[in-house]
């Protein structure tokens, strides 16, 4: 099977001969077709299907089995979990409303989209916080190397 790749690779080099350079579009279109086809299902199942499935959950409580008696009884989630669940469900929904293209962001729809943006901003804020942490660690590591391993000033 490797010869297929080698042939396509060779066609790529035909670009160097201006007259038949257009043949190099074949491997290019092969790559584009493959990437598009491969990612379509991949992204669809792991991004869309999986995430939607994970968002489906009871908000307030569940029937639980008592470990000692084996009896099941309804137990409400602690308020903390309830708030968390509601926030996840509402936030995901509102976020999707923000990405909606075929409706103007006006009225109730616009208000929901605004809520969606707020959630996106919290997400970005969290990312930012963690990134700062990462980048500072990096610099600490580098300076530690300069002063410690290299100049021998620390420890």
């Amino acid at each position: 099977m490797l010869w297929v790749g080698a042939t396509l690779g060779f066609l790529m080099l035909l670009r160097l001969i201006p007259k038949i350079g257009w043949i190099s579009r074949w491997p290019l279109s092969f790559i584009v077709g493959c990437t598009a086809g491969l990612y379509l299902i991949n992204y669809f199942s792991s991004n869309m299907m999986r995430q939607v499935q994970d968002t489906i959950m009871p908000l307030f409580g569940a029937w639980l089995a008592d470990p000692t008696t084996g009896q099941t009884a309804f137990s409400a989630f602690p308020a903390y979990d309830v708030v968390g669940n509601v926030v996840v469900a509402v936030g995901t929904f509102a976020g999707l409303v923000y990405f909606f293209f075929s409706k103007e962001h006006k009225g109730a729809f616009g208000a929901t989209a605004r809520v969606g943006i707020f959630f996106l901003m919290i997400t970005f804020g969290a990312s930012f916080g963690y990134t700062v942490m990462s980048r500072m660690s990096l610099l600490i590591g580098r300076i530690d190397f300069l002063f410690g391993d290299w100049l021998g000033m620390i420890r």
Partner: protein
Amino acid sequence: MTKHQRKDRHSRVGPATLLITVSVFFTASLSLAQSEPTVSDSVPVDSQAVASIAPVTSLIVEDFKYDDGEKLLLSWIPSIDDVPEVGRITGYEVYRITDGGEPEKIGDLVAGKNSYEDDGLSRESQYQYYVVALSDGGSAMSVMTAPSSPEREWINFGRTNLFLVALIIGGAIIFFIGSARRGKKLFVRKIAGLEAVDEAIGRATEMGRPILFIPGIRDMDDVQTLAALTILGRVAEQVANYDVQIRMPVSRSLVMTAARETIKAGFQTAGRPDAYNDDMVNYVTDEQFGYVAAVDGVMVREKPATVFLLGAFFAESLILAETGNSVGAIQIAGTARPAQLPFFVAACDFTLIGEELFAASAYLSGEPKALGSLKGQDVGKGIAMAAILIGVASATLAELTGWGAMTSLLEIMKGLFSSQ
């Protein structure tokens, strides 16, 4: 009690489990019965082990579902001596006999395991298995399974849901592309970052400075790079119209080739194929930070009026965006990598968030066909939103009230979006 310890309260599960267990026993004994004449008489049992531990029981072999005929699935009921904490069983060994040959050890498992997946088999061969339970004092061997071979399945029914949902959404996209082609008017809301593209290119014209287009640092096998190139196609048209310079240092050779074709096509659409030259795009290096250094150099020396940062970006996003900002460029950024978005949001003038990056080229082209695909995408979002709404409601109601109807609705919703 935490969420994870929750159990299903529905009493019908009890008998159901029982039923399944019984039927497993039944099929197991049936398959053993079938193989009785050839196997069960000759079950070799380690003599000294008889006294010490019991072997595993109900060993069954099944074809692994929905593969190309390379796998068999073994399952058994662990030895009755396999009790956690007491720990008389130290582990299991799985043996395989291929086409009646010599037994070969294929698996070495810790105590408590009750299944094994044997991969890399051939459809032409017959395989038999037995499992040896190990203890410090000795070992006990199970019965041997009847010869079986893996089967090839042509269709993966485990992914029926995935296929159906993908078909609906893909179908919707294709439908709307088709209906747009037939001339139906489609509305798409304004996307701020994209409204600014024309203005940004115009600004470069006024200032007489170049436009810099960075398509991320990944290769053509990343969809984000493809998205960046589709946007480049539209940008190139405008660039040709306005007659500005475009500079595009790239970090992959294939991207260089594809970008040249894209810009060339854009120039031709604008009716100025003669203005195009290959030097607009140049390859720098595959190495992430080497590339960043080069792009920063271009920014500082040539002071572009407009910078596009579209595609897959990693740590370098902030270095590029901050440098671009320091030379006073208008910056339009977009990526589907959430970690880099906050920096683009902060340091750039306009940011395309995730999905907007993929929608951008359709939006910019204004072509009805392309806009139709955005409509189809919205159908997908509608399905996701409806599923979340119905799913969460049914899950909550099912738990609160215990209605059978709600429970089944929940099962349907969960099942529909399970994608293996």
